[in-house]
């Protein structure tokens, strides 16, 4: 037999990863996965980034995937190594991100005996992965990895976990990478049902108040150009979901913001007044619909989604189109009529002007919205923005509009605090030539700030802007509005000195307490060619507006108190 193809299980894993064009891996070694780590020096094209916590590995791999469109890869060892991945895997699952986690498991002979660091990670991740595998034969490693990447990256993408017992990683086998793949139970749909396109075209033809509601699916399927052409051809205004931001240029005359709990007032009102919503690559999340029974009741819906189970799950749909967003939009572009909606566009411009949600409050105080607006202007709106979860996330989405493709990386469905630092790490590794800004919450930052060490070690020029309000701000806002300002466990008593902390990691840092220092600090960060942290000590009790309280409707929307009289 050809000696070339005899490899041990660990080498087979690496050979397979190379076949999948993997370049970067985020992980931490340990007993069960050690054989795999020990062969990594034989594979210099697989660049391993040693993170400081496995949650960081999963979030970094997730952000890497969102930034590049390629699958992100994370390694972890059995037991606590794998359970530390869980939050990151759940985040990827909720936001349809292709993540492949490769985990070491205890040896086959001791599986099921509660061996040292044995955890049933396939059991644990069963409901939060698109699929997972426990490999039980060396001969199955290559085909399993091929399947894992195929499943993770096709159809509606998602995380796949491959758990490999240690003895398999050590055992000799034959490396043969399968050419093709045949998974009888998995046939993602690549075609578009033209009958449905015809029905959709008819609705578009009949509509006088149409809106496109474009989500993450545009970015995932790389349908940016199609979305633009479709909107322009039919003169239909575009509203984005949070995860859809940076799929359509914000400076385009057909762009009308993003809706939902903290979306623009006008976006919510426009959706409510539309007679047709063309939803593309989005899933009517409750943060958008509020009470689904009262969501956009004047409109018919065309719903394009690759996942059939999303169609009709929350909102009744007149024309479902189960397809890849890009393919479906291509068909719609050729089938749909050129149209003008002058009256409708005038009407919605009026709504927009009457609800200038994004106008900054005049104040000498340092408010986070102002910081983000400056960040936007001084980076010319071209940075990749990675956020945590909370108020700062909403302000980032509101005050940092994107004209370019795929610039916002944020944990939407899972709402995982702690995403901001490892997410920025993954994004910067994936897009080394672009400037990455992490807009962080003081709370979320403290959850995963250990990755500052990884950033410093790898000299990644990430800029971190902490919106330090001394609070778990978003929760405090709910307490203020719905629990009579009873601030239970949301205020930090004793915040660490973030500047000294960053410096301890070897990262340049600044503190900004005054509005007049904002521009200078941001410019310093932009021109510094390494990582920088800015601790923006902002107003502590600022609220995010507008707000539609959970489960309510556009009629219940609260706007910024000062802009109320404009109504």
């Amino acid at each position, binding site marked *: 037999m050809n000696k070339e193809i005899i490899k041990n299980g660990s080498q087979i894993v690496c050979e397979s990863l190379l076949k999948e064009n993997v370049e970067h891996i985020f992980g931490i070694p340990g007993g069960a996965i050690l054989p795999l780590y020990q062969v990594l020096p034989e594979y210099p094209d697989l660049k391993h980034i040693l993170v400081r916590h496995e949650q960081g590995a999963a979030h970094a791999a997730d952000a890497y995937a969102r930034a590049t469109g390629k699958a992100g890869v994370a390694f972890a060892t059995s037991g606590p190594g794998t359970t530390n991945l869980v939050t990151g895997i759940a985040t990827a699952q909720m936001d349809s991100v292709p993540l492949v986690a490769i985990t070491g498991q205890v040896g086959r002979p001791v599986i099921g005996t509660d061996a040292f660091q044995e955890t049933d990670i*396939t*059991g644990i991740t*069963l*409901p939060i992965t*698109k*699929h997972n595998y*426990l490999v039980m034969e060396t001969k199955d490693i290559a085909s399993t990895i091929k399947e894992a990447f195929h*499943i993770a990256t096709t159809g509606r993408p998602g995380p796949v976990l491959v758990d490999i017992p240690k003895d398999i990683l050590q055992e000799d086998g034959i490396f043969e990478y399968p050419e093709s793949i045949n*998974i*009888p*139970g*998995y046939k993602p749909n690549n075609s578009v049902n033209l009958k449905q396109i015809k029905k959709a075209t008819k609705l578009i033809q009949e509509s006088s108040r149409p809106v496109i509601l474009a989500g993450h699916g545009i970015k995932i399927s790389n349908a940016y150009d199609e979305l633009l052409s479709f909107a322009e051809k039919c003169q239909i205004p575009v509203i984005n979901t949070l995860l859809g931001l940076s799929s359509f240029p914000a400076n385009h005359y057909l762009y009308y913001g993003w809706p939902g709990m903290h979306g623009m007032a006008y976006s919510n009102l426009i959706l409510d007044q539309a007679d047709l919503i063309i939803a593309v690559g989005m899933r009517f999340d409750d943060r958008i619909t509020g009470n689904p029974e009262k969501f956009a009741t004047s409109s018919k819906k065309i719903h394009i989604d690759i*996942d*059939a*189970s999303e169609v*009709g*799950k929350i909102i009744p749909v007149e024309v479902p189109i189960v397809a890849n967003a890009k393919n479906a939009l291509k068909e719609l572009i050729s089938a749909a009529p050129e149209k003008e909606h002058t009256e409708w566009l005038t009407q919605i411009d009026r709504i927009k002007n009457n609800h200038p949600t994004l106008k900054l409050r005049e104040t000498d105080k340092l408010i986070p919205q102002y910081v983000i607006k400056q960040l936007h202007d001084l980076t010319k709106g071209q940075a990749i923005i990675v956020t945590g979860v909370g108020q700062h996330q909403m302000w980032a989405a509101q005050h940092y509009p994107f004209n370019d493709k795929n610039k916002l990386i944020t944990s939407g469905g899972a709402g995982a605090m702690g995403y901001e630092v490892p997410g920025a790490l993954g994004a910067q590794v994936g897009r080394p030539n672009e400037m990455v800004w992490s807009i962080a919450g003081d709370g979320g930052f403290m959850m995963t700030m250990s990755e500052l060490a990884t950033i410093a070690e790898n000299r990644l020029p990430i800029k971190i802007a902490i919106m330090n309000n001394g609070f778990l701000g978003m929760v405090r806002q709910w307490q203020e509005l719905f629990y009579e300002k009873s601030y239970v466990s949301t205020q930090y008593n004793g915040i660490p000195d973030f500047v000294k902390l960053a410096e301890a990691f070897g990262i340049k840092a600044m503190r900004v307490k005054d509005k007049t220092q904002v521009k200078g600090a941001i410019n310093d960060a932009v021109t510094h060619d390494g990582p920088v942290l800015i601790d923006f000590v902002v107003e502590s009790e600022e609220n995010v507006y507008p707000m539609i309280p959970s489960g309510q409707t556009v009629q219940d929307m609260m706007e910024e108190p000062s802009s109320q009289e404009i109504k």
Partner: protein
Amino acid sequence: MTIKKHKLETRTVTALVNDKPGVLNRITSMLRRRGFNIQSLAVGHSEIEDLSRLTVIVEGGDDIVEQITKQLHKLIDVIKVTDISDESIVSRELALIKVKSTPETRSEIVQLVSIYRAKIIDVSSKSIIIEATGDYQKIKALQDLLENFGITEVMRTGMIAMNREKN
């Protein structure tokens, strides 16, 4: 003696699934996680090697069955899903029922059993074990009747169902 009518709307979904460790776990985990109500679930080898057939009796209307069907279909180990509720089907379930008996009640039980074309498979001085096959209604009806004598144990396989051949 009243026979309780089975009121809930139920639907019958069958699926062809990989016969691999953990597959049933994936299916039940999904059903549980999404809060679907399952009346019964039965699984066993199919006529195709390495594939099993599953019958799920689901409580709920059209939209719920549609979601279940789609969510089942999304599982990589599920190869084919069919909602056969509206088709002409035969369905059967096997039940073992242990019922208390005394010399006085024994003959009445035996009579009931024969009316329902069930079988007595074990007799002791204090109880009888009955084997009954049938659709949901029939087993329910028999069980309700036997309740009067005191049922001590019931074991049911869950419903399995199959399309009738169209002529």
